[in-house]
């Protein structure tokens, strides 16, 4: 018994190490690249020894890229801000709309509930390209083209189905008798929803919100097609480092690192909440 568990521990350790290597190595490599210029990035063979430089970050943050012949203005920080703004607002709106709906589907079986739920999910089926051309035309007509409101609306296609279906599952996993008991004690529907159901589904909501945030963050095509240059997210902005005088790998890498940072910070912050909340099982058991 003892030897098996040692063997298992070793195997587990190896497995975790391999997994961390596979998933984290590219991130580490990008991180290292962000402190280099093409001169050292494009070496044969590649090497981890280099003199770190902050030029990439300086260029991104100051918005001035000193090129070979000219200074290039780049709007990376405003791209970053756009990403942040679009993702945060979309997810907020998505949560406000999606969580009550998810609760309704999970708790209140009503006529047509599954149909409505499926319809909502089905918006996720439509390939974005399919609706883009008509959408640009209609947005043009109703004045939503090139507005944040229009973008946040379209972003709901990404975030809402995700939030809805994940949160719904969590609501269904909460034993209904807790809410029932609370209702019996004379509390109204909204009070029950707010004080009991919401906190219990907290981790689910946090996880769904975080994932929706990531997917909104990574979106590319909507803003590109629907909005002008001043509303573009980092995903579009970072392509600006492919310039006529070569592709600036260092700057793209720095751009990626800067664009991961807010999401990662959010995840780390939510982690405590996620972890505490994930003791949901205890409630059930």
């Amino acid at each position, binding site marked *: 018994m003892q030897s098996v568990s040692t063997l298992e521990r070793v195997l587990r350790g190896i497995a975790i190490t391999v997994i961390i290597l596979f998933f984290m190595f590219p991130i580490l490599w990008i991180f290292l690249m962000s402190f280099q*210029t*093409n*001169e050292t990035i*494009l070496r*044969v063979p590649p090497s981890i020894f280099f003199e770190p430089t902050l030029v990439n970050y300086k260029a991104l943050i100051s918005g001035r890229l000193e*090129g*070979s*012949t*000219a200074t*290039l203005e780049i709007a990376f920080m405003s791209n970053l801000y756009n990403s942040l703004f679009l993702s945060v607002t979309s997810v907020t709106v998505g949560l406000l709309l999606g969580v009550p709906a998810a609760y309704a589907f999970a708790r209140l079986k009503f006529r047509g509930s599954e149909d409505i739920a499926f319809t909502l999910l089905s918006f996720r089926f439509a390939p974005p390209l399919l609706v*883009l*051309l008509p959408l*640009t*035309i209609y*947005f*043009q007509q109703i004045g939503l*083209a*090139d507005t944040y409101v229009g973008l946040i609306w379209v972003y709901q296609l990404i975030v809402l189905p995700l939030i809805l279906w994940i949160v719904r599952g969590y609501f269904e996993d909460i034993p209904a008798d807790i809410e029932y008991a609370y209702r019996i004690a004379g509390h109204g529907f909204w009070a029950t929803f707010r004080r009991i159901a919401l906190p219990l589904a907290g981790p689910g909501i946090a996880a769904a919100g975080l994932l929706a945030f990531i997917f909104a963050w990574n979106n590319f095509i909507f803003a*590109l*097609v*629907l909005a*002008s*240059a*001043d509303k*573009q997210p980092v995903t*579009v*902005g970072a*392509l*600006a480092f*492919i*310039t*006529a*005088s*070569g*592709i600036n790998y260092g700057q793209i890498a720095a751009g990626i690192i800067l664009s991961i940072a807010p999401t990662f910070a959010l995840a780390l912050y939510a982690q405590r909440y996620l972890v505490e909340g994930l003791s949901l099982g205890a409630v059930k058991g």
Partner: protein
Amino acid sequence: MYEREKRLAKSYIEGKISRRGMLRGMASMGVTAATAGVLVNAAATQALAQNGFDWKKHAGTTVKLLLNQHPYADAMIANIENFKELTGMEVEYDIFPEDVYFDKVTAALSSGSSEYDAFMTGAYMTWTYGPAGWIDDLNEYIGDSEKTNPDYDWDDMLQGVRDSCAWNGQPGGALGSADAKQWCIPWGYEQNNLTYNSRMFQEAGLSIPTNLDELVATAGEANSKLDGVYGIGVRGSRSWATIHPGFLSAYANFGQKDLNVGDDGKLSAAMNTDVSRAMHEKWVQMIQESGAPDWATHTWYQAGTDLGAGKSAMIFDADILGYFMNGGENAEAGNLSFAPFAANPDADAPTPNIWIWSLAMASASKQKDAAWYFMQWASGPEHGLFGATEMDFVNPVRKSVWADAGFTSRLDSSYPGYVEMHDLSAPGAKIHFTAQPLFFDLTTEWAATLQKMVANEVPVDEGLDQLAQSVDRQLKEAGLG
């Protein structure tokens, strides 16, 4: 501000002092060369303001541009204050990275948006935009002395380049024909020729290839003699962009065409001739033997990056790609040289297919006359000279700029062979494709076929026959064949 400097610039323009004298004077006032350039252009602009044209007609109007992130756009922006001063107009612009630029243009134009008045485009794209009704025929403006200033000098544009932007809209219609519409104004253009690493060529004792056979051999030699270097960079990604640079330039040099235009105006595939087969075979062999290992994913920037980083001995691609790789922080900056290239041993001169960054006017624009004011200034001789001498506005499309000694001597000093290469190739430089609406479908498939040939998935002759069949089928389906 800058009053003394402006006076100095003015006397330079009027020929009272030399350029060097002017620059020295400027330097003594603490003005850098680039700023001096802008000031000189300010003086030139002032001269322009005196030419009797009503420049202020649209004062107070704001035009909005859609621009690709490119040195041409940079050069324009650096000089934009002069335009504003000249006309009293405002200029706004949205810049998008090249990777997504044309998606943005297509989206903006197809939605009927009136947001952008003018935009940057390539000539190929106008084969879609023109028939789609998204852009205006600019002949109406160029020929109108009310709208175009007397010093615009349209005939100063290189003929092949100018014609390549004009098409009558008939599938298969010759570019630059008498009934052609000027869909866009050439701004800057690229010839496809050789850029080679002279350090490596010297090291390996290579000489400059003068036809396709020699190119294949030289690339092979470079590949084997130089350590960690592959012989030749050409594009290979699954895209129309793989066909139009070096490949089509070589192809056209053998007198080959992409499509035949019948007497009835019907189009049919023309790439399965014997000459084409032989050319394809050599091309495929060249890539297999000495092309980039990741050729099949190579776009222009990989081809360029590899050359600049010393991974390839030469490229057969856009001359300005070589130009940019010869500067900046590229490892091989300063080592690159340029040579014209005629693939066909029997050809008199190179016939580079060209890419033309140009300016087009959106039909949906609500202030076309004002937009044209911007376009004629931006494509005019003054800005052209400023951009070419002070910024990276190469290659200029105007003969007057190529005739400018300041410009050519600047090129000669840091880009050996560049001017010669250009001048030798310019007469044959034009778009060698047949203008028709399926351009992107057919060239993308052509690229995919090349990829299959290089990967030995299909033999060259069979691949070409399949391609020709598919092209004919698609042309028929679209009612063109």
